[in-house]
């Protein structure tokens, strides 16, 4: 397993749909493992993580298992590239989510399917705490994954110190 890319917001936050982008992913590995710590700028209790393969945010579907004290579910195509939950401004200061995305066979010519896990934990608002696991499919693009973007699913930006690491697994 080799670290092949990293991005962070150590020098400031983002606005809108600008997030953390990794480009130039080598095509020499078998799988990708993405580890991120994210926090959003949205008001209210929670925001979703948007995950855009090849920086394209359309034509995804997913089904998730979500737990926040009671089990909740999301159906397909909800905020189409939704990939987990993250804390926002109302939540505990300095609390970031833990986010993992595993993409098997990212270089093949099939539609891309992947699994993500996220934990957003808020000591202030239990409703903003959530454990999520989803299976997502990027349904119309069979291109190899060469880049991705993690962003606020509602285009409200990410806060300073959000970060992402991507590992190539052979």
């Amino acid at each position, binding site marked *: 397993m080799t670290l092949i890319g990293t991005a962070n917001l150590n020098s400031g936050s983002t606005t809108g749909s600008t997030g953390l982008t990794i480009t130039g992913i080598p095509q020499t590995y078998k799988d990708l493992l993405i580890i991120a710590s994210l926090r959003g700028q949205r008001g209210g209790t929670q925001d979703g993580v948007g995950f855009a393969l090849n920086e394209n945010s359309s034509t995804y579907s997913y089904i998730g298992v979500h737990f926040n004290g009671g089990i909740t579910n999301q159906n397909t195509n909800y905020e189409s590239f939704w990939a987990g939950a993250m804390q926002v401004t109302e939540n505990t200061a300095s609390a970031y989510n833990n986010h993992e995305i595993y993409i098997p066979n990212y270089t093949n010519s099939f539609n891309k399917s992947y699994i993500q896990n996220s934990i957003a934990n808020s000591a202030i608002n239990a409703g903003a705490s959530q454990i999520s696991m989803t299976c997502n499919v990027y349904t119309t693009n069979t291109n190899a994954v060469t880049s991705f973007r993690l962003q606020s699913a509602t285009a409200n930006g990410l806060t300073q110190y959000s970060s992402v690491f991507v590992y190539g697994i*052979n």
Partner: protein
Amino acid sequence: MPTYDNLGTVTVSGSSTTTHTFSGISQSYTDLVVVCHFRPSENTSQTYIQFNSDTSTSSTNYSTISLTSNGSSSVAKQHRNIYGWYPSPGPGIGTATYLMPWVVHINNYKNTNLNKNAVSRFGNASSFSNILTHSWRSTAAITSIKLTQESGYWIAGTTFTIYGLKAS
């Protein structure tokens, strides 16, 4: 981060492959990760995992429990005391036109004092997503892993990979 060392990969071609065994698994790691990226030719059938020589369909040593969401409801399901680990306890894994990921993390696979346990995640974004736990009632070190498609075959492009994890 732990290291991931590739201990074996198979990529399916043609339309007749129904089983594959990874044998001679190295005992040099702490955990194993089995990454299945697969689609059966028959939507109602599943792939299951067995270990070592415990590969009879009369075995009762394998159990799986899942938390399953189909997008509108969540349920707990189980396959207890049967002959393999399944990605989705119940009558199938749904319809898909893409390869589906099933990632199985097996802890302490070589510890001869423990029955073997695993956690896994499986998803079919057209049907459901599962969080699962598995147990194999054997204290034997895992030296081989057999994957079997219970009916039909795996479509071409299906891949199975075993990784050895070692603490960094």
